[in-house]
């Protein structure tokens, strides 16, 4: 099975729009939303059945038993995350606590204990045809990379027979959730945007993918917003020998499709037509890759 991951560096370039279109076009039997901070793929991929839900536990959080605490302050002094507050007694700020357990180990009177904490929710939509794994991180939780790994694991462990392609929608940025989403994928499709900001972020995500030895290809969304910069992206890819798989024009009908819970290929619109070429080219690259040998 091949895994195709959609990334962008910069937010809002159209990752989810493209991911939704590719899932429809390929009739992918497995897909996942790894943007656990701000998941949106479920809004385009209408599901008929309720998902299987389960709580996601991140790192445990420290808790101080106020009655046992003798106020020695060692926990606060040694906490690297500024997670211990002292307002007439020591307490833990759960948003800052990363669950390292230093305070628990240091406390001379065992007043600190580590409590399991729900950090999000995982959802798996299963039909006779496909599986869709997604999640929502609880606000302010710190373990998004770990949840991304869980979302992918859930998808991979629920695969239906004869699944040839999994499409994974990633998150913006280059940090832990993005790095976690890259592990094990066959190819990263980068959705770039023709702006100075978009190019800067594209270069950063390409560099990140290179560090983790992940193959990449690039498409440009909203290409006609700045044709000069679209060309610059194309040239950049040529120079770096990164496959350039196509462009999508700015299309107000894309907004309409999304606001109606549809993907752009379910409407006859310019962006929907353009993404078909990108799909064909990306699939070709995936097939050429590794000479058809399963990863």
């Amino acid at each position, binding site marked *: 099975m091949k895994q195709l991951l959609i990334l962008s560096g910069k937010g809002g370039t159209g990752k989810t729009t493209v991911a939704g279109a590719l899932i429809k076009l390929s009739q992918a039997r497995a897909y996942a939303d790894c943007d656990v901070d701000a998941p949106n793929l479920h809004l385009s991929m209408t599901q008929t059945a309720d998902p299987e839900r389960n709580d996601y536990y991140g790192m445990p959080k420290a808790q101080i038993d106020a009655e046992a605490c003798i106020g020695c302050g060692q926990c606060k002094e040694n906490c690297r995350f500024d997670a211990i507050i002292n307002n007439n007694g020591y307490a833990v700020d759960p948003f800052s606590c990363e669950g390292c357990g230093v305070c628990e180990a240091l406390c001379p009177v065992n007043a600190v204990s580590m409590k399991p904490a729900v950090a999000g929710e995982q959802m798996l939509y299963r039909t006779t045809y496909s599986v869709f794994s997604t999640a929502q991180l609880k606000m302010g939780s710190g373990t998004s*990379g770990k949840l991304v790994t869980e979302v992918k694991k859930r998808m991979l462990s629920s695969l239906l027979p004869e699944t040839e392609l999994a499409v994974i929608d990633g998150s913006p940025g280059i940090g832990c959730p993005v790095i976690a989403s890259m592990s094990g994928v066959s190819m990263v499709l980068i959705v770039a945007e023709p702006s100075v900001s978009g190019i800067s972020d594209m270069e950063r995500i390409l560099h990140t993918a290179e560090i983790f030895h992940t193959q990449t290809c690039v498409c440009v969304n909203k290409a006609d917003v700045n044709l000069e*910069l679209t060309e610059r992206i194309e040239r950049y890819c040529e120079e770096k020998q990164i496959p350039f798989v196509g462009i999508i024009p700015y299309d107000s009908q894309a907004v309409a499709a999304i606001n109606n819970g549809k993907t752009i290929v379910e409407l006859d619109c310019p962006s929907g037509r353009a993404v078909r070429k990108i799909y064909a080219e990306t699939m070709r690259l995936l097939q050429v890759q590794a000479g058809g040998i399963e990863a």
Partner: protein
Amino acid sequence: MLSGKGGTGKTLVSVNFAAAAEAAVYLDCDVEEPNGHLFFKPEITSEELVSAKIPLIDYDRCNGCRTCVDFCKFNALAFIKNKPVLFKDICHSCGGCVLFCPQKAISEEEKNVGMIQSGTSGQVRVHTGFLNTGEASGIPIIKELLKKSAGETALPIFIDCPPGNACSVMESIKDADYCVLVAEPTVFGVHNLKMVCDLAETFHKPYGVVLNKCLEDENPAEEFCKEHHATILGRIPFDSKLGSISSNARIAVRENDRYRELFSELLHTIIEEANHEAVAHPQR
């Protein structure tokens, strides 16, 4: 400036507000993908590296008791051939292994994770955090960045946040007096707007919403605000000229009177809102 969803226009709004305020401080906390500096093109006055602490194991002293390996909640230390081996990319710099090694065989060294670039563009002080590619967490950089504004209390400070609502966003808004949520008119935008509203409320921060890229059609973000009684601070229409100026990383306020007026008025509304909140809820 917050948004939940990426690409709604946080940087556009932050940069133009700071430019409209004339004398201001702009902090780019979106350290994974910092873009404000591309607009300001500041004259760089200083650059400093930011590092995180990671353990340094003295293998002559280590007796392989594996206390450190057993302690590490992040599995950053593995026990291989009877010795602890550090996987530094997973280390959270908690310092536990150093504290609890019975042989005192572990000290700490600095690992560079990124940098902060400071400079000036007109009367705007621009501080930008850059996370090194391949690094997982930008939190140490954001913490240092926020210290940059500590001495500049007389000026308005505009904090450009990362998208989402995870740890890096929380870190960025901790010291904020007022949150501006930038939303786009899509159901994706609304879904993520709701999350950042919850975040602002959890942190007891007063907030208002700027509706960006407004089209003629119905605006799901606007409907959301009305339903949830969220203050609408103003609207920025979808405008291909503004899009073109911004895609070229130019500052609309500095080159066009119409945009100067638009952003100045919006900024004025926000400052009034923020002052009003400060009077109404001084405990914040």
